[in-house]
């Protein structure tokens, strides 16, 4: 099975999150833990989250489709990375 691992996806998410934080003149983050909630932890608004997913889709050549993920987990780094990784690996 090829395709990005959850840790590969995490690297992309971290980079995109840090771009958002930079726009808000905030300090960058490293080593996002599995239970890190992109909305609740960083106060990103819903549109910033959607923009992040769109950018991640372009970066990973991933059709942004979160329909199979529990909405409670969709903004949490661990489940999100696993879900995106599984989708991409299934496709490849």
């Amino acid at each position, binding site marked *: 099975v090829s395709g990005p691992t959850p840790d590969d996806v995490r690297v992309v998410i971290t980079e995109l999150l840090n771009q958002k934080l930079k726009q*808000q003149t905030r300090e960058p983050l490293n080593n996002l833990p599995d239970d890190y909630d992109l*909305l*609740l932890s*960083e*106060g*990103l*608004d*819903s*549109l*910033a*989250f*959607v*923009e992040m997913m769109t950018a991640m889709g372009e970066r990973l050549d991933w059709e942004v*489709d*979160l*329909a*199979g*993920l*529990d*909405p409670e987990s*969709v*903004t949490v780094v661990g489940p999100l990375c696993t879900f995106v990784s599984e989708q991409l690996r299934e496709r490849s």
Partner: protein
Amino acid sequence: MKVLLIGEQAAGVRTLQSLAQSEARIAAVMASPARQIGHGGSLWNLAVKLGYTTWPAELVRDPNFATQVYDEGVDIILNVYSMFLIRKEILAAPRLGSFNLHPGPLPRYAGLNSVCWAIYKGESEHGVTLHKMVPEIDAGPIVYQEVVGVESEETGLSLTGKCVTVGVPLVLRLLETAAQGPANIPLVAQDLTKREYFGREVPENGNLSWNCPARQISNFVRASDFFPFPSPWGAPRSKLGDLTLGISKVRLTGRPADVPPGTVGAQSDGGVEVASRDEWLVVRQMFREGKYISAREVLRAGDRFVDYATLPGLAP
């Protein structure tokens, strides 16, 4: 330019972020103090974090609050997706007036959930309007207006995002124009003969009829789609036996259906096919008892949804 920002949601957050980097002086930020879980960072929390004075948004219901606005020397009230109706005394208190950013191409699509209605009605274009506020909702003269495209797969959430992205710069443009001289602010009266107003109602009371063209069903579902965030309309409902299910994601197939509308077909493309009046649709995600579920968990070939128009008390 001294500004009082009244707002909510991501649009309010984006506006405050932009104002904070502009030359505007912010008298205070008015929003709902309670954090809305699932909506991300609230305007209230951001204002506190940035060190601005915060007032509860519901104060705009009190006509006596106009005195405070006047005493603060507010030049402009900016109303960005606030959930409260502002009393006319307060609208008149700022030196240059009160202005509202509305996610709709006024005079059409005035009122609530205009983004949802635009997708539901199959519009190919929508718009954002910055207008001066008058006591009648969304009826004041237009300052600036921009058009946004509505794509074939647009959802309520994605179109909301487009409107915010295009709308927030209009607010900054207003402040720049006002700083050059209030007389420069364009105020174009609306043609109220073309006014369309939408309230809290949801099309078909939120019930989905499979006895409609597939495109119409898709429009209704996409208009209601704010996943993973709460939808103002909820997911369109349909009955399967004793189950009431929300239909939250569908995909058009373009393949003609020659079975009765509502008939469940084969699994396909990440979901399960259901017949509409003219084509098969793939139902990909559903909503049951407060949870999103895969259509594959519930639907079986040969099942048939009940058409709501035949249910007692549900026909329009």
